[in-house]
């Protein structure tokens, strides 16, 4: 410390005025977390001006590297950079072990659940999860019944949303088992961080994130149709007008796989081919970044121009693997979420390693009553929406908004769940000239072929607006590099 003080005599240490208030801070904890001591002292040794300059350079670099969301208007393509905060979020070895084993446990249970509900449906017959909640769910695909998938894997790529509550306890907010996005930022953020702040991590053992593409390719190879030792794996994108196109490119590059669109694929005799310069060439595994609905106009939405006619037939014949499988949406539904702890106990006979946020299920009389009695204290979410849309945060809503919500709830209770307000943990974040606390969550990415592997760390999203709990990029969120200490 004395050394740091000498170096920074003429300036205030970076974190000197930082005050997380009542929130649990990822950097300071309640009494100063010991695992972040070294990083804190290095941050304090950086001067504020230099930090801001390096942050600006990093932002320019993102633009030049084209690591952007693209928003298309009539004449122009506008590139928006996902704001990147230069102060890393640091996870201790112990916390990471819990997250890693907890995520693996959850995905194992969810894959067993999906196999079950599309086969014998024991869990429904045993009354653990209400049958109509599953089979009446919009995301349940009866077309999937009786189809056996390689290794019983439905959710090959998962991005579990994890938060830390006011006491610092980790819990799961959401299982994203359809098409989770954001992994490209995990890896690009790390590269950017190592270029802009090589001094900050120097000599600190931080888990690597570079192996994701290779691991993903390995998982895809493992789930190829039977007897395929050298399968052709492709990434299927809706195209350059999709906001996540950068990520699709990133994944294809990291995997060394062709990036295709629906119009590049064709199904003949229930087999899938791509149109190449040398004619048609067979395809065996498709990492698809297109929703179920749009995959195949013959099987799902007939107006889809993004999909491939006949793809689902080829899938049912076992000639091609889709990752993620069709019909996984029912497992990450916000209503089914509430049952995941029971799902884990049912299939694995284990207690959940990562708890859920306590959840009231409004389709149940008890849950609805608790919700209606306590609207101004709860966060109420429609079960069918993604991206943070339609979420009502009770303590921050006007009487009128709550009245409207009450009407909607009574009209369609099954469409809602409610949860206590989780006072998300905060991270020191560079805001203008100052370092201020901002709320964060964590999305680790897990890959499952034969077995599950979790990328160390994950995407830390940060709500850049003061006091905001909404971390979604579509609503003013940014991201941070996430360091898992080893």
């Amino acid at each position, binding site marked *: 410390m004395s050394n740091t003080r000498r170096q920074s005599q003429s300036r205030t240490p970076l974190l000197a005025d930082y005050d997380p208030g009542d929130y649990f801070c990822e950097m300071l904890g309640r009494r100063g977390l010991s695992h972040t001591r070294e990083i804190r002292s290095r941050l304090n040794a950086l001067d504020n001006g230099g930090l801001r300059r390096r942050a600006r350079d990093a932002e320019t670099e993102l633009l*030049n590297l*084209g690591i952007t969301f693209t928003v298309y208007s009539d004449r122009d*393509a506008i590139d928006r950079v996902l704001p990147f905060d230069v102060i890393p979020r640091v996870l201790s070895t112990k916390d990471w072990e819990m997250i890693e084993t907890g995520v693996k446990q959850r995905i194992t249970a969810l894959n067993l659940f999906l196999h079950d509900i599309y086969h014998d449906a024991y869990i429904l017959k045993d009354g653990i999860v209400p049958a109509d909640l599953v089979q009446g769910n919009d995301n349940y695909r009866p077309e999937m019944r009786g189809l056996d998938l390689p290794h019983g894997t439905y959710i090959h790529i998962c991005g579990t949303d994890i938060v830390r509550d006011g006491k610092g306890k980790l819990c799961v907010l959401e299982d994203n088992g359809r098409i989770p996005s954001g992994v490209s930022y995990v890896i690009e953020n790390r590269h950017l961080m190592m270029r802009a702040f090589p001094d900050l991590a120097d000599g600190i053992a931080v888990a690597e994130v570079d192996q994701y593409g290779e691991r993903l390719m390995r998982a895809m190879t493992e789930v190829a149709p039977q007897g395929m030792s050298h399968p*052709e794996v492709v990434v299927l994108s809706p195209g350059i007008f999709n906001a996540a196109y950068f990520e699709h490119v990133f994944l294809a*590059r990291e995997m060394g796989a062709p990036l295709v669109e629906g119009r590049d694929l064709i199904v003949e005799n229930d087999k899938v081919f791509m*149109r190449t*310069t*040398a004619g048609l*060439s067979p395809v065996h595994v498709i990492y698809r970044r297109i929703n179920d609905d749009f995959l195949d106009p013959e099987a799902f939405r007939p107006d889809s121009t993004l999909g491939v006619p006949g793809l689902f037939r080829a899938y049912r014949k076992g000639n091609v693997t889709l990752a993620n499988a069709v019909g996984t949406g029912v497992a990450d539904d916000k209503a089914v979420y509430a049952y995941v702890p029971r799902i884990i106990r049912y299939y694995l006979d284990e207690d959940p390693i990562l708890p859920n946020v306590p959840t009231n299920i409004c389709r149940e009389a008890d849950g609805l009553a608790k919700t209606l009695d306590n609207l101004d204290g709860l966060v109420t979410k429609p079960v069918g929406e993604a991206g943070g849309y339609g979420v009502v945060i009770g303590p921050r809503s006007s009487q009128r908004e709550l009245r409207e919500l009450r009407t909607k709830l009574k009209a369609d209770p099954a469409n809602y769940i409610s949860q206590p307000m989780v006072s998300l943990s905060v991270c020191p974040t560079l805001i203008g000239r100052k370092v201020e606390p901002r709320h964060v969550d964590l999305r680790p990415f897990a890959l499952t072929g034969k077995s599950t592997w979790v990328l160390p760390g994950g995407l830390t999203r940060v709500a850049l607006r003061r006091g905001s709990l909404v971390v979604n990029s579509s609503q003013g969120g940014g991201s941070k590099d996430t360091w898992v200490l080893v």
Partner: protein
Amino acid sequence: MSSLLARFAENLYWLGRYLERAENTARILHINETYARDNPAGPDWRRVLDLYSDTERFFENHDQANARAVLDFYILDRGNPTSIAFSVANARENARTVRHLISTEMWTQINLFHNAMKAKTLPTIMLSQLSSVASGMVTHCQTFDGIADGTFLRGEPYSFYQLGKYLERADQTTRVLDIGYDRLSLQDPDAVSSVQWSTMLRSVSGYHAYRYRHPASSSPGDIATFLLYDTEFPRAVALCIQRVTERLHDLEQRHDKQRRDELEKPRRALEFAMDTGPGAKLTSKRLHQFLDNVQISLADMSNAIANAYFGHT
């Protein structure tokens, strides 16, 4: 190793074409201005409009072919398909589509170029010398091509990028010749100042190369022959055609020596046009007709490539 998607082959081909086109348009604007240095009336910008057959389109929205209007049209106007801004924006969109097939450095360079183009405004172009604006744009293109040379995997994607680049370059060199020889009186070469000859050669980075090859001559015939046929000069039409042929051969080898008969006919037609030449006694009119023929053969070649490889049938 699987084959390249047909759609990507097309994107790579156009990436090469658009960047080469942007570079040459910048060169042409520059040479047109420089030629007019001795002319008190200033440059005649209608020449450039003629060269790209843009006269009619231009006058739909403009009253006068003055520097301001023409430079806006050819540098900044994204709505004009022959503008540099249009070429760069399209090159970037093509690069974005094949982002996973090109190197990060290539992608970064095209973003830098694209951002630089977006930052340009007419007042800043008019204020600074056109020559520095033009050479800045040329440098961006050359940087890209240099990066591609040093980082682009020599596979199928590279072949299509090169095909686009060299077909466009061949076409553009014929246009430089066309504009150059139209201005210079072929009947009386002595009336033409050596400054003008050297300017045309310099516009295709060919001045010293030409001097090295022909130390004692500045005859219009020698210069035309040099730009058309000297296969040691990187922008000569014959060299570009040679590169196109080589890349087509690579692709056939790669696809199990699959013969592409549909490419043979336009290739021979191109060869024939080049072999015929502009005739022994060079006149402005003959040269123009010859160059027209070559341009048509190049366009046929481009269509044949699209049919053979991009799934256009």
